[in-house]
């Protein structure tokens, strides 16, 4: 079957035999966007987190047919080195990643959180950022999430003022 959607602001139509194929494998193997990671295949670790219509989704357990007509964003579409998303900027400033494998999932989860809660408290972070990082970079991630919120809020204020 054919499935049409937007990925990182580009229209995309794919042809796929099994419409229940997890979105993760379509993104990684078919569209060659490998920033989104496979960790567990059971929505338990969050390494595969991306956005569907701005919502954080664990794509390893998300059938591809559900994105028909929707907007999908992956880490490749979140920001670029020239124009980083506030979350990526904060991640760089706090030097968060170690092995780095789980980090796109965390950054995508954080970006979605900041849309819902622009100034998350520590409790908000604890309750919403529930991905797994084996290098245990949580300490710097928490600092980076607070920093990302402040970068994002500053830029929003500036654009409102200007």
């Amino acid at each position, binding site marked *: 079957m054919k499935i049409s959607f937007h990925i990182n602001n580009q229209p995309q139509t794919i042809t796929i035999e099994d419409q229940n194929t997890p979105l993760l494998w379509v993104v990684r193997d078919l569209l060659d966007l490998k920033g989104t990671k496979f960790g567990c295949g059971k929505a*338990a670790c969050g390494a595969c987190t991306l956005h569907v219509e701005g919502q954080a989704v664990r794509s390893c357990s998300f059938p591809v047919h559900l994105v028909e007509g929707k907007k999908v964003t992956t880490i490749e579409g979140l920001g670029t080195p020239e124009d980083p998303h506030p979350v990526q900027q904060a991640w760089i400033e706090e030097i968060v990643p170690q092995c780095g494998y789980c980090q796109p999932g965390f950054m995508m989860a954080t970006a979605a959180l900041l849309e819902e809660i622009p100034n998350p408290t520590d409790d908000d972070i604890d309750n919403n950022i529930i991905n797994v990082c*084996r290098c245990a970079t949580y300490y*710097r991630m928490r600092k980076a999430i607070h920093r990302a919120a402040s970068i994002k809020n500053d830029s929003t204020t500036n654009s409102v003022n200007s």
Partner: protein
Amino acid sequence: MSDEKRAKKKLSRRKFLVRGGLGTLGVLAVGTYLFRNPIRRSLADFANTVETPYLGDTKTPSIWFEVLNDNSVILYSPKVEMGQGTFTGLAQIAADELEIDIDQIKVVNSPSISGNMDDFGTGGSTSISSLWQPLRELAATTREMIKNEAAKKLGVEVATLSVANGIISSDGKTMSYAEVVDGVKEWKVPKTPALREIKSYKFVGKPIPRVDLKAKVFGEHIFGMDASMPDMLFGAVVRPSEIGAIFEDADIAEAEKMPGVIKVVKEKDFVGVVANSRMEAENAKHAIKTTWKTDKVWQTKDIEDMIKVGQGTPITIQKEGNAKSILEDDQDKITAEYHSPLGAHAQLEPNGAVAYVEEDKATVMISTQVVKITRDEIAKRIGVSKDKVNVIPTFLGGGFGRRLHTPNGIQAAVLSKAVGKPVKCFLDRKEEFQHDTFRPPTHHVLKAKLRENGMIEAIEHNVSSGDVAFGSPLLPGIAPALMGADLGAWRGGMINYSAIPNYRAVSWRVKLPFATSWWRSLGLLANTFAIESFMDELAEKAGKDPVQYRLDQIGDDERGFRLKEVIKAAAEKAGYKDKAENGRAMGFACSVDVNTPCAQVVEVSIENEKIKVHKVTCAMDPGLVVNPDQVRAQCEGAIIMGMSASMYERMYVEDGQLRPIIYGPYRMALMRHAPKEIDVVLLQNSETPGGVGEPPLGPIGAAVANAVYRLTGQRLRSMPLEAS
């Protein structure tokens, strides 16, 4: 003899292995003393204190460095990057001796075919410490080679040249490294030049941002899981769920007819499938009917019954004075027992590989900590000579010792050979949990006798553990016979309180029915948990402050001095108090690993009947610090990973299967468990860099248990630590 020849001769004799190491153990041990305990003890002591050397090329600059047209330099690293920051540290070290800017150096993995491999692999907190000297010498030699050519091209004396940021200047004339190397067909390797003064370095010692930061923040495709080759197919291998299951046969008729299946591959020891897509391979795999042979249906209790001090063969790894006889005679001795559970690596990137086996050669892209062993194993299995197998290491989505065994590389290669195309093949998460090379469970018996003044007269640590180093391809097969005790299992199990007149440590080996092996810091976490919990128990019996009690019983040698300094630094920075206040209490513990002493103070409370760690203060002395930011990052990560292993994680065995098989049920530290405050103090009481990646994992379990005791009066002697 010309100067050049003399230099070459000198070069060929230049070695960095003078400090010895594992490679020399066999030499030391062979002879009539083979099975005598004193020799084994000296071996154990040697293995406990010696710095692991670099076991790769140290004299061929051309396989280490490449100057590109844009005047940047590639460093081909024989050590892989698995999060520990090694690429960054190596870039700093090399840039300083090459006299280029940090932005001009790019560190990449060295493919096996280049010949730049380390026999030891990547692990043991050795990457920076073992390469500190050879890499500086290689970089300095490379710089001199370029300068010598520049002098020729510019028609000036070498002595007139100055260098900065990869630009050579003399008398108003300048030339970039790239311009110098352009067209040079043959290089002469001069004798190793004098190294620069450490204090003149621009990058060593500075908190340079990780060189892989952008790749990791913007989702570049750098991991083994991301690797691909043209016309690649997807493979899947059937793995048993039961412990000890041996492959017998497989009915592949149904799987062969599944959509997208190219071939079902039946080997003597496994069965796998190759298909057009990952899903098709996975679906077909589940259609294969495999028969396994198992001798026994294992349960957790079987494993617990095996891990007991007193069972098997004891090997004394440390002995001073007469601890054994003193403690045997003493009716009033203090004893305590401790346990640690079976633990999984649970690294996020599953193991796998992309392999392409052609007629007489093979290419394999893989996350591995042991490039050379991976290559040799694949070459042997597919019948291609080693030098025709190119293992291209990728960035690792976590290592932690999990990628010191890489049968997944063999399986991908076998599948590729069967279809003549590149095949990508990965374990799923259930397989990762059931086919891990686990951190073994341990049992510890501590005994001590105190003098009237409360000081320790005699102390003994007995540890029973599953294998760590034994059985690993990293160790020669003869090692168990030579060494008796598993140096991985007893790591951290020696008594560091050398002012005690009588002390002894004994290791009991247990071979479990599944693979146990290297897990970040090896036995350090469990052994330190036991010894340092016991030290707090003794301090209380003696009526002493636990920090002072430790300080008073450490010797005055260099090792003792450095340990005492970190103890004092941690206690002072944390404002350590030996009593609970406002519902919170502090706990202290310390350890020495790979010659790096580390002390930690944790502050805990009990919230909703659960232990909550609020703050950890960590003082560590890894010697010269190449990158203070990344050493801090290693401490922060190791502390939380150590909390995870000490407070939450536990694998168990149920009806023959290892469980859990997924994150969540395998409980791990998450964001909500991480301390809000981690304060790292770095001391540098050694002039060379020591190990960093594992030492800060040592004290955390004991420090938490000691804090909980102070708060609740409940002594937790089994990990995972749970307040009740």
